[in-house]
C-alpha cells in the first residue's frame, strides 16, 4: 500500500472578499494521478499555487511526505520534491532552450556534488530528449511554438527530479496531435522515467485540465471544484453521470 505523499486539510484562501479556495481536503498516494477540474474561476489554479508555495493558505494545512509545507519558500518546496508547470508558459525567453532546463538541473535537489557545467548540460539534454525537443536545444526559448513551449515546461519540471508534479493545463492551446503527444509523454513519465529519483517509479501528478476526455484517460481520480469548494471526488467513469458535476458546468436545470 503506497503511503500518502500529499495531504490537504481544510485549506482556505481568500482574495479580499472572494473565497478562491474554501475548506479543501484530500489525500493522494505516491502513485496517483489526480485530475482537477471545474469551470473557470473555480479555484483550480489557486489550489495548485497553494501547494507549490506561490501562494500561502489563510488557514488549513498542506503536508507533503508528512511534513507541513505551508509557509515554506517556493524553492524549499521544489527541493522537497514538488514541481510546477505554468498554465501560461513562462520560459526564460532570452536563454537557449537547454539553459532553461539546466537551471532546473542546478536545483539543490537535482544537482549532485561536484557536477560541472558539462555534466549538467548532458543531463539537461536527456530531459529535452524525453520531452522531444532536443533538436532545438540551442535555440532561444522565444522561438518555440506553443506546443514546444509546453514540452519545455514539462522538461523543466521533471529536471528538478520531483516526486509530485503539478501540471496546470498541460494541453491548453495544443492541437489534437500535440495533445496526444503530450498525453503520451505524461503517461510515460508517470510509469517511471530514466532519470535520477524518477528511475524506479514516476512522480505522482495533479493535472488541472479542461480537456476532460484526455484527462479521464489518464487520471485515477477526479476532483471537481466550483466556487472554490469541492463538488465531488470520484473515479473518472463515475464523472459522466454525476448530476452535481453536470450542473456546475452547464448550470442548474440543465438536466
Amino acid at each position, binding site marked *: 500500500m503506497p503511503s500518502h505523499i500529499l495531504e490537504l486539510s481544510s485549506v482556505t484562501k481568500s482574495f479580499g472578499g472572494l473565497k478562491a479556495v474554501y475548506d479543501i481536503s484530500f489525500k493522494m498516494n505516491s502513485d496517483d494521478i489526480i485530475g482537477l477540474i471545474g469551470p473557470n474561476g473555480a479555484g483550480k489554479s489557486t489550489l495548485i499555487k497553494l501547494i507549490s508555495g506561490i501562494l500561502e493558505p489563510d488557514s488549513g494545512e498542506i503536508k507533503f511526505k508528512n511534513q507541513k509545507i505551508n509557509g515554506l519558500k517556493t524553492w524549499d518546496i521544489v527541493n522537497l520534491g514538488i514541481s510546477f508547470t505554468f498554465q501560461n508558459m*513562462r520560459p526564460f525567453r532570452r536563454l537557449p532552450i537547454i539553459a532553461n532546463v539546466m537551471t532546473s538541473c542546478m536545483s539543490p535537489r537535482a544537482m549532485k556534488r561536484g557536477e*560541472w557545467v558539462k555534466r549538467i548540460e548532458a543531463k539537461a539534454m536527456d530531459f529535452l530528449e524525453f520531452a522531444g525537443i532536443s533538436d532545438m536545444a540551442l535555440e532561444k526559448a522565444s522561438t518555440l511554438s506553443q506546443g514546444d513551449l509546453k514540452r519545455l515546461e514539462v522538461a523543466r519540471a521533471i529536471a528538478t527530479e520531483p516526486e509530485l508534479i503539478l501540471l496546470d493545463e498541460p494541453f491548453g492551446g495544443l492541437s489534437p496531435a500535440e495533445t496526444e503527444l503530450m498525453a503520451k509523454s505524461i503517461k510515460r513519465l508517470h510509469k517511471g522515467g530514466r532519470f535520477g529519483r524518477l528511475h524506479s517509479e514516476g512522480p505522482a501528478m495533479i493535472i488541472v485540465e479542461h480537456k476532460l476526455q484526455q484527462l479521464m484517460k489518464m487520471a485515477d481520480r477526479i476532483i471537481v471544484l466550483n466556487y472554490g469548494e469541492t463538488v465531488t471526488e470520484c473515479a473518472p467513469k463515475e464523472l459522466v453521470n454525476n448530476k452535481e458535476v453536470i450542473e456546475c458546468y452547464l448550470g442548474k436545470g440543465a438536466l
Partner: protein
Amino acid sequence: MIFNIIISSLINGSTYALLAIGFSLVFGVARIVNIAHTAFFMVASYCIFLCTNILGLNPFAAMMVTIILTVLLGLIIFKIIIDPLREHEAAVLIATVALAMSFQETMLLFFGGVFQSLPYLVTGNMEIAGIRVAYQQLLIIAMAPLVLAAVWIFLKKTRMGLAIRATSQDREVANLMGMNEKGIAMMTMAVSVALAAFTGAVVVPLSVVHPHMWLHPLVMTMAAVVLGGMGSVKGSFIGAYILGFAEALVVFLIPMGAFLKGSVALSIMVFVLLLRPDGLFGVTFEEER
C-alpha cells in the same frame, strides 16, 4: 587636442563603466536600485586610505583588504536593510539614499571634509602621441573591458552565472526551478560591491578622496545605466563610454566647459531617451510582460 579628448573620455568612460556594470548587474538580477552603490565606492576609497596611509599596507594588499571588508559591509547592509524592503522598490530607493547619506556623514565625522589622496597602484608614465599618460591611467582604461570580459565569462560560462541570468529574467520562475533567488541576489550584491571597491582602488588615486565624492559618479553611473537600457550590462558599458566621451568633448571644446560637463552629458541622455525610451539596449523583464 584630439588625443587629450580620447584619453580623457576613455578614463571617464572606464570609470563610469566599472561602476555601471555593478549597478546594472544588481538591478538586472534583483531589481534593486542601489543608490548607495557609489557610496560603497567612497567608503572603499577611505578604507584604502586607512590601510595605506595609516596602517602602512602596500596598495595591492590594501585593495584586497578593502574589497573583502566592503563586500562584508555590502552583505550586512543587504541582509538587514535591503532584503526586508525588496518587494517595495520605492522603499529600497529611499533606504539606499539614506544609506549613502549616512556613509557620507560617517566619513565626515571620522575624516573631516579634508581632501585625501591614495597611492598609485602602478607608478610611472609614458608618452603617447605627444601626451604624457600615467600608467595608472592606462590601468583604468584596460581594466574596464577586462572586468566586462570577466563578468561576461562569469555570466555565460559558470553555473552561478546561468542562475543569475535566469533569475534576472524571471524571479518567480527561478524560484520554481528550485533556485534560492534571495541567495542569488545576495551573491550579485557581493559581486557588485566588490566591483565598486575595486573601482575605488583603481580610479581614485588619480583624483581625491572626500566624503562627497560619490555624488557625481552616481549621477553619471545612473545616466549610463538608463542610457544603455536598465538591466543590460552591455548597454550600461556602452552608455558609460558615450557619457565619458560627451563629458570630455564639453570640457575640451566649450569655454568653461568643466562647469557644464555634467549637464551636457545628461542632456544627451535625455535626448536619447526621447528617441528610445527603453535606452539603447533596454531589457523587458518577464514580470513586466
